[in-house]
């Protein structure tokens, strides 16, 4: 029974959206129903990060009740229109971009960090993102930023030598194949669903159907 209470408490503190000190007036007056997610600008050194990040954005937005344009289709269309780099898309006029897709809002995401640092016996993986949403007039309606750091927990077997070896193996494995995706997904989840920046429910939510 006790552990059940702990779980319930965990769930409640983990999921409660705290609405405070955020001005939602621009968002509410735009009242977006459809969101265009454009290719992600990448300021990290990992060249693949942009596409990987792009693959994580549709689910949390659609689950919040919005129509989300198909990200890969959008990317292909933009490339055919001559926008091969995400920077070009982000620099271009939001109003004509929104018009081109008939979107109510555009989500721009920029990767600031996507790296793994190897420090002696531990590796820490860091991702950092800027999120910006504008309406079809180009007015900023939502903004968030998130940094997530993952450092593998050091094990404690009581035998210092065993622990050292375990830590080294752990760090080497993390460095060889750092797994950024859970961090990226949880960053999105936090800014879009859980924290004070959580987006209001869109038109396609279960309660309204």
């Amino acid at each position: 029974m006790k552990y059940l209470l702990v779980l319930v408490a965990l769930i409640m503190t983990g999921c409660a959206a705290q609405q405070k000190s955020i001005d939602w007036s621009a968002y509410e007056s735009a009242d977006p129903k459809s969101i265009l997610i454009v290719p992600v600008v990448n300021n990290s050194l990992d060249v693949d990060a942009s596409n990987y990040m792009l693959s994580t954005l549709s689910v949390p937005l659609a689950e919040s009740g919005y129509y989300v344009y198909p990200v890969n289709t959008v990317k292909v269309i933009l490339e055919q229109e001559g926008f091969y780099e995400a920077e070009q898309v982000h620099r271009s006029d939001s109003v004509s971009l929104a018009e081109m897709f008939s979107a109510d809002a555009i989500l721009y995401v920029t990767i600031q960090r996507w790296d793994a640092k190897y420090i002696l016996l531990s590796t820490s993986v860091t991702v950092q993102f800027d999120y910006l949403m504008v309406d079809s007039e180009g007015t900023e309606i939502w903004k968030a930023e998130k940094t997530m750091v993952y450092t593998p927990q050091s094990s404690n077997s009581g035998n210092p030598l065993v622990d050292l070896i375990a830590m080294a193996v752990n760090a080497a494995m993390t460095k060889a194949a750092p797994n950024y995706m859970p961090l990226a997904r949880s960053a999105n989840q936090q800014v879009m669903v859980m924290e004070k920046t959580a987006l209001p429910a869109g038109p396609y939510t279960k309660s309204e159907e």
Partner: protein
Amino acid sequence: MTGPRRRWWFISMKKLGLAFLIMAMTGCVTTEYSWGPYEQGLYDYYKKPESGNEFLAELEVHVASIREGGAKPAPGLLAEIGTLYLERNDTQSAIKYYEYERDTWPESRPLMDSLIKNLSDNASKG
């Protein structure tokens, strides 16, 4: 009498706890849509573009099962299938899926209509 009853109650509490744990681990929200292989498949496709055929086949099976069940596939999934077909030069299948997307999601209509129009025009020219 009370013995078995209590045991039943105990087991159900355990199950409830497990259900909570699963909810907490899966991000504690019930999902609106069944995304199937979409998110992971798109990641794999970007990582290894040669996995595109597999991604297309898996997505197609997934949306077929959703449509059979009478539910709406998640926003964009049908159009993504269309685009994967288009990249494999199967214009007819691409148009078919763009039409599905358009008829499922009114917000997609202007974009899907213009994609379908362009593809039909090109097809009739060729």
